[in-house]
């Protein structure tokens, strides 16, 4: 897994790529934690370059979404540019109702 964080006015944009499994999921967790510790709880996750994700990755997403939404001024983790296989995993996990999912990165960043 590789990632880049871009700090924007309205949100942080976290772009992750590669393989997210039990081995690499902690890196995703740290990346999200660092953003939240900086005080930003509006996060757009660019998932377009994810090649593989297992339940270990999904676990990180749900935990981050909980933290974002628990803030006094509620934040949100928005999932953007979700590849088909990743979407199927989110569906199988019953996560679709728990996240805003945007096809276009610009919409995600513009609407958060």
């Amino acid at each position, binding site marked *: 897994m590789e990632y880049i964080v871009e700090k924007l006015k309205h949100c942080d944009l976290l772009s992750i790529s590669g393989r997210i*499994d039990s081995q690499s999921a902690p890196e995703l967790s740290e990346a999200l934690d660092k953003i939240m510790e900086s005080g930003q709880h509006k996060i757009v996750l660019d998932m377009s370059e994810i090649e*593989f994700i*297992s339940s270990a990755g999904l676990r990180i997403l749900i935990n981050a979404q909980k933290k974002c939404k628990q803030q006094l001024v509620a934040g949100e983790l928005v999932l953007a540019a979700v590849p088909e296989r990743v979407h199927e995993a989110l569906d199988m996990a019953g996560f679709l109702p728990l996240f805003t999912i945007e096809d276009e990165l610009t919409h995600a960043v513009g609407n958060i």
Partner: protein
Amino acid sequence: MSFKKVVVFPAKLENLAAIDALIKSTAELAGLDARSIYAIRVATEEACSNIIRHAYQGIEDGTIECGCYSNMDSFTLVFRDSGHVFDLTGVPSPDLDSCLEDRKAGGLGVYFIKQLMDEVSFEHIPGTGNVLTLVKYLTPDSEKSST
């Protein structure tokens, strides 16, 4: 086409990518369609990460034997370990309908395996260890896309 491939890996999280590469290339060789291959890869990650994290919890130097068996009708994965005995076929489905606050973060791995594979069976052979067998049927579609 009918073949088998068996490889033993040290039970470490850093080997998950290597296990995935083995399963992926073998499933491609078996002529499975892209959707089935991805399903098998996810099931493998879930099964092997559970063995590494749970079956071998507190145990050093464990191994996972990954066997791939392909024939005309199905693709079979057999994972063998000598860790704690645990029959995942008995794990109940997670609650997928609760609201965000009540939603459990974990407990999806076994559910994914059962959803993604056509057969899931567990056997403990005393003296030998645990044997988890996962089967994916080759659909006419997947056979077609194999040509």
